[in-house]
């Protein structure tokens, strides 16, 4: 597993180097490696409607700035997700949302706290709704860690936090998410 991760890391660095030398095919391969994780990141951060547009923007900016990437500063994964994070921030600014809690979203916690609780299986929509209800930095750490599978070091680079702080953040984010899902009536086995 570790070997595989190392090999993948080495491959990515080679592709980045080739892309920096102006090889479009190498960038195409990088795109193939990252398009799904970036899309998933966007899907859970801004929603399905804008995910494609922002994914596109991430890759355009990545290409624009790829010559600025330096291996010693951070891994390429961390770098591209940093770009993705900035794109999301710009998106929120331009759409005047703070990304914390959309007041227009129906508060299903009130609904789920009715006398009748249905133990439902966690599905995509429920997860998405619960994630929307989290604070921004909770949401981001959960997405990067458990949806995109990045390492704590990479997440630390992206979010500008120490690893110790990150651990606590992850824990609190999970706890909050679980509580929100319980209020939605998600079954125990899924939690």
């Amino acid at each position: 597993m570790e070997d595989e991760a190392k090999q993948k890391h080495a491959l990515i660095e080679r592709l980045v180097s080739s892309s920096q030398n102006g090889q479009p095919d190498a960038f195409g391969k990088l795109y193939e490696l990252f398009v799904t994780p970036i899309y998933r990141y966007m899907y859970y951060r801004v929603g399905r409607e804008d995910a494609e547009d922002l994914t596109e923007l991430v890759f355009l900016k990545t290409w624009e700035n790829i010559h600025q990437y330096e291996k010693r500063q951070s891994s390429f994964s961390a770098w591209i997700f940093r770009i993705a994070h900035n794109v999301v921030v710009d998106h929120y600014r331009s759409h005047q949302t703070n990304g914390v809690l959309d007041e227009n979203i129906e508060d299903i916690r009130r609904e789920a706290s009715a006398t009748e609780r249905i133990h439902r299986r966690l599905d995509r929509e429920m997860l998405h709704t619960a994630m929307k209800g989290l604070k921004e930095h909770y949401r981001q750490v959960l997405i990067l860690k458990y949806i995109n599978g990045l390492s704590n070091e990479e997440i630390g680079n992206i979010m500008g936090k120490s690893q110790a702080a990150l651990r606590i953040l992850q824990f609190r984010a999970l706890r909050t998410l679980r509580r929100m899902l319980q209020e939605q009536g998600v079954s125990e086995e899924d939690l």
Partner: protein
Amino acid sequence: MKYILKRITRLIARVFSPLSDRVKDFSKLEKMMQNLPAVSLQKEEKNALKEKILARIKVQAQETRQEESSYQGLIARIAKIAAEIHPNEYFRILLKERLVVLASMPRRFKGRFLNNLVLRKAAATFALVLLFVGTVFHFFGNDVPRVEASALTLLEEVSGEVTVIRESQEIKGIANFTLKADDVIRTGKNSRASIRFMDESVSRLAPNTEVKISTLFVNPLNKSETTVEVVLNYGRLWSRVINLIDGFSSFQVKTKNTVAVAKKKAAFDVSVSPKGKAKVVAVQNRVDLMVAVDKKVVETTLMKGFSAEVKTTVSQAPAIRPASEDSQKDEWVSENLEQDKVYIEAVKQEAGKTLSQTEASTPFTVGLSLDEKDRQMQLLEASRAKIAEAQKALTQGDAVRARALLAEFQSQVSGVASWVKTFAATNPAEAAPLRGRIDALLGEYEKQLALILPTDQLYLMKDAVAQTKVLIAENPLEKTEKQLSAATDKLLEAHDLVEQGETEAAQQNLEEYRKTTSGILEDMKELSADDKEKAVTILLENQVEDLKSLRAITAPLAPLPAESSSALFPPPPVAEGPQTIPEETEKTLEGSPPVLSSVSSEELEQSLEDVKKETLQTMGQTVLEAQQETPSVGLLKTLEEVTNVDVNGKQLINVTLTRYQVFVRSDGTIVSVVPVPVTVPTGSSSTTLPTTSSETREAPPPQP
């Protein structure tokens, strides 16, 4: 005022008073604090507190770990759900293409362009202006009148009392009345009508006839794929099919228990007597016949000069016999043959006008394409201009320029086809309709040029379109299919050439057919095992049809007199219109007896016989090779179907298989194919490899 001054004085005094004076204020307090008794934990208390705190931390850590581990299920569930999220495939591929194109552009320009908002806005404005100007020129600048082939089915000619019944309403039939599916057309006594169908076939109703148009189908994605079905309720119906192109296209005339199906080209007559007896006469080329007999369907092919009579009772097979002399002198037949000549010429002229006035994309519109897909389709449309220019060049007698233009057409279309093939590798769903457009364009030209023969000036164009179809084949199997189709077309042309007395040109066509077929066999050797089997199936099916076509080609036994009343061998048509007619044909057009070319009828018959033998040999070789490699169930089924093919009520081909030999019999000719060992030297010893050879024998004359 005094009070304020006092306060200020005190403040100043305080500020500038020595530090020691101020410190003195806190010294008492300090002393008090220093004298307080020292409070501290005892050692035991310290340890106890330490243990308590450590225990507390330990418990908390344990609880945290337990809590963390309890999230594993949730984490796993999140990961599983997230793994289901994928970007839309189309979006993914489209974005990749854009990025690769972007990455290929010079960086400096890109960077400046992407970063400079003003520049981007200016470019967008410029593009909009260009689009507006282009649209204006496109709609208002082009005043060339367009000639479009009618996509409608029309009641073209009307004589006497003709009624159209539509949704139970009777409408008086008039010329150029548009007909629809489910319309019933009825002619009264001494009345006639002709229907021109959207596939350019024509049917003519004799007096006291009623037909119903049951199907009029045009594939919207490929307009050369058509199906027409007409039901003859009673009376008599002449039908002339002139240029059905696609393998799926057909023209059918149905009676109560009979279906006559024409593909590609044919002329046939169907009649239903007051007692319900149906009769089908194949006048030119051939017609496939299906008759319901005792809950099964009897299928046969009716060749030119043969008739089939079907009684109303369903227990009797059709009676097939050569068309009698009476039918040859039948006025109805001869009149229709004459009218067909006129009709065919008119269709040829219409096709010529359509070819010369085709609208094509301009470089301007190509340049305004939104994406690569759109650009490729614009390029495809732009290739139409090459065809139009080639046609003009040919009518002006400039064959050299025409060849160059046709080569450009081929290059352009095959370039687009090549791009679509690459695009299909990553996006097959998107690529399929694009490929359909290429096929539709070529199908359109093939249909317009279907009536052109090797003796016509525009034949170069027809040949170029046929070659392009082969060139853009997506795989070796498709290439084989297209080549076989092109070879079959050579035989159909040979049929028409013989009809016109052009025996030398007909023989040349037979030669080209032989060359194409032997080339296909060589190519088939390079196919993979799976493809080879499919190719064998296609080859066998084609060869059966080709044998039928060879039968339909009848060399005139003697020069035709000008006043010949034989309806089966009409004199060559009189051509009218802008096309330049070759000199040799001009001589025959002035009403003098047609002069046979240097190839005699005996020579032509010998050529036909040779081609037939080679076709049978090819079939035999194909069957033998397939047998040696353990043929699949599908191939065996094809072999069975091939041997069950019926022409004029008799078996067309008989195939006898042994382990290493196959006999193929057809129409009095027997061909045997055996493997012949070939010695190949390999170093010091030799290796014997099996190949095939064939031997042809004439069957003994049938015993009386």
